[in-house]
C-alpha cells in the first residue's frame, strides 16, 4: 500500500475519466469530462450548482450509466459495471445526504460495510460473532471515527455530525483505495468542519481521494489538486495556487465564490 502521501504521482493513475458524457433525454449534463487522478492524490471537485458534480459521482460509482466515454479504475474499465462491482474493485463513495441503515446500530452499520471486503460474502452458515477479522476491523473503525461510545445507538438517534462521520465510516469500511466523498462537511458548523477535515485526512491516509466540496477553506486545506467542473466539463485541473490564478476559473466560478467569502469574512 502506498503510504507516502506527500508525493503524489509516484504511482500510476487511480482513476481516469476519458471524455465522459451523460445525457438525460436531450439535455447533456456531462459534456466530455476528462480527469486523471494519480494514486494517493487528494482531489477536490468544485464548481457552481448544477455543474454536474453529483452526476459525475453517480457515473463513476456506477449508480448511473454513462452515455459515452470511458471510466477507468487502476487502468481497468468500470463504466457499465454495477455499483457493487465497482465497489469490489476498490472504489467506495459517500453520499451528500446521509445514506445509512437507520434501524441498525452504529456498530452494525460499520460491520455491514466491512463484510464483503473480508470475504464473508453471502454466507449463512457461520455466525457473525465468529468472524474475528470482521469484528476487529469494525472495532478499529469505531475508535477511528470516535463513535465507540455510540456503538449500540441506532442511526436514527445520532446527531447530525455523528451521522456524517458514520457516513464516511461506512464508506471507508470496505478498505477501498479510491474514496469519493460527496460534500462530506455540508451542513456542519465551522468548528465541526475543522474537526471533520482532520478526521477525513486521518481515515484516508494512503488512499486516493476525490471530494465534492463547497467550503473553499476545506478545499484549499485538503486538496493536492483541484478540478473545476463547469457545465459538465472540467475546465481546470491543477494545484490550488494555479487554479486560484486561473482566469477562466475566476470568470466562471471562483471569482464570485472568493468574493462572497471575503465579503462574508469582512462582515464578521
Amino acid at each position, binding site marked *: 500500500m502506498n503510504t507516502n502521501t506527500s508525493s503524489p504521482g509516484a504511482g500510476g493513475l487511480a482513476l481516469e475519466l476519458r471524455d465522459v458524457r451523460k445525457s438525460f433525454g436531450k439535455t447533456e449534463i456531462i459534456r466530455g469530462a476528462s480527469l486523471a487522478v494519480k494514486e494517493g492524490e487528494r482531489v477536490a471537485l468544485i464548481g457552481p450548482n448544477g455543474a454536474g458534480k453529483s452526476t459525475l459521482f453517480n457515473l463513476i460509482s456506477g449508480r448511473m450509466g454513462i452515455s459515452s466515454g470511458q471510466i477507468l479504475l487502476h487502468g481497468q474499465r468500470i463504466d457499465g459495471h*454495477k*455499483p457493487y462491482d465497482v465497489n469490489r474493485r476498490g472504489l467506495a463513495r459517500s453520499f451528500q445526504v446521509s445514506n445509512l441503515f437507520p434501524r441498525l446500530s452504529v456498530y452494525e452499520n460499520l*460491520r455491514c460495510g466491512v463484510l464483503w*471486503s473480508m470475504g464473508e*460474502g*453471502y454466507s449463512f452458515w457461520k455466525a457473525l460473532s465468529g468472524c474475528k477479522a470482521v469484528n476487529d476491523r469494525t472495532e478499529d473503525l469505531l475508535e477511528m471515527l470516535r463513535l465507540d461510545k455510540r456503538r449500540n445507538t441506532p442511526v436514527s438517534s445520532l446527531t447530525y455530525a455523528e451521522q456524517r462521520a458514520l457516513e464516511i465510516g*461506512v464508506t471507508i469500511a470496505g478498505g477501498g483505495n479510491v474514496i469519493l466523498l460527496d460534500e462530506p462537511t455540508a451542513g456542519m458548523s465551522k468548528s465541526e468542519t475543522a474537526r471533520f477535515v482532520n478526521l477525513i485526512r486521518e481515515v484516508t491516509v494512503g488512499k486516493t481521494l476525490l471530494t465534492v466540496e463547497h467550503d473553499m477553506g476545506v478545499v484549499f486545506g485538503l486538496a493536492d489538486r483541484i478540478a473545476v467542473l463547469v457545465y459538465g466539463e472540467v475546465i481546470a485541473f491543477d494545484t490550488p495556487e494555479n487554479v486560484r490564478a486561473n482566469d477562466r476559473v475566476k470568470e466562471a466560478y471562483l471569482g464570485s465564490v472568493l468574493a462572497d467569502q471575503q465579503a462574508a469574512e469582512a462582515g464578521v
Partner: protein
Amino acid sequence: MDHNIPRYSFKPINLGRWVIWSLFAIILLGAPMLFTSSLAMTMLSKMGIAIIICLSYNMLLGQGGMLSFGHAVYSGLGAFAAIHALVKAADGSWNIPVSLIPLVGGFAGWLVAVILGSVTTRKSGTIFAMITLGVGAMVFSMSLMLPEFFGGEGGISGNRVIGDPVMGITFGPQIQVYYLIAVYCFICTAAMFAFTQTPLGRMLNAVRDNPERVEFIGYDTQRVRYIAFMIAGFFAGIGGGLHAINDEIVTAEVVGPEYSGLYLLFTFLGGALFFFGPILGAVLLVFATVLLHELTKAWLLYLGVIFLMMVMYAPGGVSSLIMMNVRVAAFGLLRKLWTAYLGLGGSALVILAGVAVMVEMVYHIKLNEALGPMMTFMGVELDTHGVDAWVGAAFVTLTGVGMFEVTRREFVRQWGQAQEEIENEIRRRESH
C-alpha cells in the same frame, strides 16, 4: 492500535439466551401434559406448524422488508409434495420414514422458491408485492387445472401410519405427531434464529433498511433477497410437510390467497420487528381460526377490526407492545402506568361488549331468522327486533368510546412522561 488486547469480553455462554431457549423447549415438551383434551392437542399441533411458517414468512417481511402476498404457495406446495411422498411411502414405492417427510416438503418449498424467486426477488417494494400477488393467483388457479397433482375438489389424502413402528412410534396417536411437530418446530426456530446472526442475515436487514446503499458496499441486493427467499421457502415447505402429516389430507386451498393472507396478517399482529413476534402471531392465528371461528360466525369481522386497530395504534404488533413495556419496566416505571392500563382495558371491554351485541344481532337477523327474533348473548336474552336492545347496545358502545378516549389521553400523557424519564436516564448513564 494494539490487536493483542481483546477489547470486548468473550462470553462463551450467553445465560439469557440459554434460559429463553430452555423455556421454549420446556413449553413445547410440557404443553400437551397441561392441556390434554383432543381439541387442545389439535390446536397445539397447528400452533407448532404455524410457528414455523410465520417465522419463515417474517424472514421476508420483518428481516428483509419483502411484503409477500403469496407465502402459502411455498408452504402449500411443500404440503402437496409431502402428501404425495406419504402416499408413495405407503404403497411401498418410496422408502422414506414418516419422520423425514417434512424435509420432502422443505425441499419442495425450496425448489419452488428457487424457480419463482428468481422472478419475484428481482424487484423490491411495491413491485415485489404485486408480483407475489400474481404468482400466488397463478399457482392457486393451477390447482384447479392440474387435478392429478392437487387432487381437485377433494384434495389428496394419505395415511401417516406406515410400516412397522420404530421404537413404538407409529404416528397414529395425535400426541406422537405433536412431538414430531414440536421437534421440527424447535430445530427450525433455532435455525431461523441462527440465520439472523450470520453475515447474510445481517445484510438482509441492511437491504430492508436501505437497498441503495447496500449496492455501494459490495453486495448485490437481488442476490441477498433471492437467497433469503429460498431459505424462507425451505422452512415454509417444512411447515407444509408437517401440515400434510398432521391432517393426512391436503386440499388446494392451502396454496390459496386465504392462507397467504392469514400468514401475513398474523405475522404482522405478532410483530415483524422482533424475532419472537411471529411465534405469538402463530399462536393467535390458531386461536382465531379454531376457537374464534367456533365461537362466532362473525369471526372474520372481529379479526378485521383487531387488525385495523393494531395497524393504527400499535404497528409493531403484540411483540413490540411487550418490548416497549419491558423497557418501561426495566427502568422501574411500569407501576406508574398500571391504573391507566386498567382504565384502557376496562373501557375497551365495554366497547367490545356493545359492538359485539350489535354484530351478533345483525348476524342473528341475517342468518338465524328462522329461529325467531330472540337470541342469547353471554347469558342475556335479547330481542333483535326490539328497539331496546339496539339502543342499549349503542349506548354501551358510545359510553365505552367516551371512557376509552378519556383514559387514552391520560395514558398517552403518562406514557410520554415515562419515555422522557427513560431518555434522561439513558443520557445520564451515557455521560458517566
